[in-house]
């Protein structure tokens, strides 16, 4: 396919925008046929509210459109965030009954008895893909656009990644000989390769980038610095790469600034030449969306009483640290006042901390590269005992007079958060045991809260 159509639609409601968008591309019958089995891939990240997950009114619109053309079966689903069960997310959102009331089926992808996996070979890798998706005639991506710390925006290509389980999403640190893992940002390269591998297994027939409400500032989860901006826009098409390209263009991000789209072009996974994309609806040149993207440096996350310093960091650690720092800023208001002073060091060879108290070393790089640094030890100088010195002076015992003892001790006010990257939720446990419950009451409460839905690994060794 050398050309494609992409619609940019502005409307007064998200559902109306989707209907108009699909209509402008020839109607739903151009994407779904009678008797088709359709899988609608949504965002289902955590048991949180909109826009962490998809807008539920838009799912209704899509299901109704599919029903209009008499689709045989409509499935809706996604894998949630790592170590979360679809069941707990679905229960918290009450999504199953809602989807069923609309005449579709909500799929618990992690229930392998009901929805078995099938091995798919791609680029020499074996990916376990849910059979229900592979066997569906059509795949529809309904994607909520928000800011993202690594890719600027949560474009639809990223959404496809949660078509496979977290086990296959995990990027293992694979240092190639003679190559600098950090300098080349191998983590991000591996991540992009994996995402595009998953994407190429089953290409979507219809892609909807919903940016009607756009989460700016901090995201894609809701943090203190998050702000929901109404743009009234959605972008629709059948080529995910082209739809993402146009979506990014709305934010004035071009192809060359997007690593993932560049790689998609190299692998010819979609149309990246804008002259081959026929635009329908709003004029691309007329829209300039001014939004606040995520910070590009962790130091820019302004947290009370916290001094953040980074060394050379991989994207994996950057992303996890970004989320951890934002969690701290959002859910530790009181704790940060009690802590008074803490230094957060991340990456290889980070600058020295502001003080010798409460030093958080985030990630293996920071821990290993600072093993012999000065702040690991504290020097204790025995203060002079003036009374004793005076007594000895009187006794004329000059030898003993100026004896000042200097001792070197291990600095115990350091908390290490190992891993590459460390899991942000595991870090919370470590921070609680370091600071103590009374020092971090907010964090203690928040940790108990996430325990209600998050499976915490207990075997992780943290100091």
């Amino acid at each position, binding site marked *: 396919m050398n050309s494609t159509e992409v619609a940019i639609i502005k409307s007064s409601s998200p559902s109306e925008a989707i209907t108009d968008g699909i209509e402008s591309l020839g109607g739903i019958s151009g994407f779904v046929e009678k008797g088709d089995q359709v899988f609608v891939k949504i965002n289902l990240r955590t*048991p949180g*509210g909109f826009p962490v997950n998809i807008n539920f009114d838009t799912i209704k619109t899509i299901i109704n459109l599919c029903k209009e053309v008499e689709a045989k079966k409509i499935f809706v689903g996604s894998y949630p965030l790592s170590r979360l069960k679809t069941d707990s997310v679905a229960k918290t959102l*009450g999504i199953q009954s809602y989807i069923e009331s609309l005449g579709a089926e909500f799929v618990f992808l992690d229930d392998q008895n009901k929805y078995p996996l099938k091995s798919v070979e791609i680029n020499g890798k074996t990916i376990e893909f849910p059979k229900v998706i592979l066997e569906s005639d059509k795949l529809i991506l309904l994607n909520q656009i928000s800011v993202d710390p690594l890719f600027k925006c949560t474009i639809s290509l990223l959404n496809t990644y949660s078509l496979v389980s977290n086990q296959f999403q995990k990027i293992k640190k694979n240092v190639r000989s003679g190559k600098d893992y950090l300098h080349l940002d191998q983590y991000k390269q591996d991540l992009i390769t994996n995402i595009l591998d998953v994407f190429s297994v089953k290409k979507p027939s219809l892609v909807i980038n919903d940016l009607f409400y756009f989460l700016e500032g901090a995201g894609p989860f809701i943090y203190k610095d998050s702000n929901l901006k109404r743009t009234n826009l959605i972008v629709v098409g059948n080529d995910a790469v082209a739809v993402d390209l146009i979506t990014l263009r709305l934010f004035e991000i071009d192809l060359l600034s997007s690593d993932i789209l560049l790689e998609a072009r190299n692998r010819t996974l979609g149309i990246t030449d804008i002259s081959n994309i026929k635009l329908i609806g709003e004029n691309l040149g007329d829209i300039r969306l001014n939004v606040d993207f995520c910070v590009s440096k962790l130091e820019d996350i302004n947290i009370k009483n916290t001094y953040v310093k980074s060394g050379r960091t991989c994207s994996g650690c950057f992303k996890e640290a970004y989320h951890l720092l934002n969690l701290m800023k959002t859910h530790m208001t*009181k704790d940060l006042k009690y802590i008074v002073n803490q230094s957060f060091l991340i990456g290889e060879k980070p600058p020295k901390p502001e003080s010798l108290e409460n030093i958080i070393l985030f990630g293996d790089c920071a821990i290993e590269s600072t093993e012999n640094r000065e702040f690991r030890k504290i020097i204790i100088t025995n203060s002079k005992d003036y009374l004793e010195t005076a007594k000895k002076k009187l006794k004329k015992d000059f030898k003993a007079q100026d004896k000042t003892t200097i001792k070197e001790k291990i600095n115990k006010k350091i908390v290490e958060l190992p891993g590459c990257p460390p899991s942000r939720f595991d870090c919370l446990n470590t921070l609680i045991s370091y600071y103590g419950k009374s020092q971090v009451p907010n964090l203690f*409460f928040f940790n108990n*809260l996430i325990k209600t839905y998050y499976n915490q690994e207990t075997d992780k060794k943290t100091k």
Partner: protein
Amino acid sequence: MINHKFKENWLKILKFNSKVNIIEDPKELKETVRIPLTPNEVNPFLLYRLFELLYPKFINDQQNILDIVISDFELDNIVFGLYLYETTKPGIHARIKGLPKESIEIKQDELRNRDVLFNRIQSVIQKDHGIKISCIRLLKKRSIDLMNSHCDRLSKSTYYEFIQSLLDIIQILLEQELIFIYPEPNILRFLKSSVSLLKGIQFSKVFEFIESVTPSFNALFVINSNNLPILLKIKKENTKSSHPEIELNLNLLESEKYNFKEQNLLPDLKGLQVDYKTDKVISIDQYSLLIFLSELFEMEVPPSKEKVKLIFQKLLYGIRSYDLYWNMVPRPIISNTLVRFLIRLFGVNLNLKKLSHWAIPDFIFGLIDTHIGLNANILIVLTERSNETPNSNNLMLVRIENGSINKLEYINDKNFLSNVDQESLESIRLSVSEKFGFITTIFKVDKLLIKTILNAFLINFHKTSLFSILKVVKLLKKPQYFQIYPEIPPYTLIKNRRSFSLLKDVLSIVIDKHEF
């Protein structure tokens, strides 16, 4: 045009205001006047001082006002009446002068461009009467009719009915824009936008609901200041009849009698309690209260999340400032050092003066944003277990956009729920979602829980103790009194944790750790 009793009373007020400066001790005058639109008779000097205090602060702080009564319909000249008040002091209406209605001509279209209209009227009045007006108040004829019918009912209605009638009138005046003031004061803008936030929710129904969940009480409020200490007595007595007996009295505080001096802002509250035969006396610093109110009225409606957080923070700061900005008799149990010491032995820190006003809003909003979302439709189902009438639950829809309330909607027509199992929140959610858009969360709250909360934290605040708080926590866990569907993690935590340890954890967040 205006009700004769209202007019008579208003002229009496004006007469008193005009002679205040020549009376030796106006406070001692035995005559009384009614507060306009209410059945309350008060000392005219108190009303004078109230106008002097509140009018410049909330309405207009400049002199001379022109009242214009206008038609509701399109006419060549919509002016029905012109009344000029020459005010020597801002807010003090002392002299009224009726002007010929032909002296100013206004068309309906001109009401859209009020600054131009004001400037024109101002120059006409200045030219004809040599007075520079600072404010115009435009009253549509229908507003006068509404006020007249309200005044007619006053003598026949109970206090409860009077409040309902007044609230209804205020709502109609604001909704239908029957009153304009130029320059528009913040309070009017605030009220107008608050009314437009409510869809189908009547002020009088809100009052009816609040009344139904409030137990009987008898309280005296001392709105305290050096300048104008005011006493406000509110008594509510639930009776066997459908409506309670409500009593509301406004008086000036006798400074000498109750040891009230400039240096002592805390008068003899116990003496007041005995003399006014009330259960409790609450003294509030007037200056702080007025500052809080003026900041509240300055707020845009719907307010941004940050603004709500700030106002909430200020309110909490006011609550924690016990002995500084407010005081009460009988003293709250939780302010007793010995009681605090004893419960501290059990690891519970309960200290009113250490309420974390700076951390609580962030904590609450963080939980709401994370678990409910920045855009959400919340359905509140108000139940009454004692009422077995089918479909009697009250349903209210709260629409949230970017973390702040965007619309409050009362669901009047509940017929679509007639075939739905009222006990199943899941079925209710699906039916309401069908009609009103996706319902993110349902909060089912029973009246008894609201009553218990009001009783524990407001009406009987002086009795608030660890046990009364635990009682509320226990009720929150019982599905017949409180339910959230789908169950969000904070509620799962509340349900799964033991009440006492949950309370300890929450108190460590809402109360500051350090004593000094």
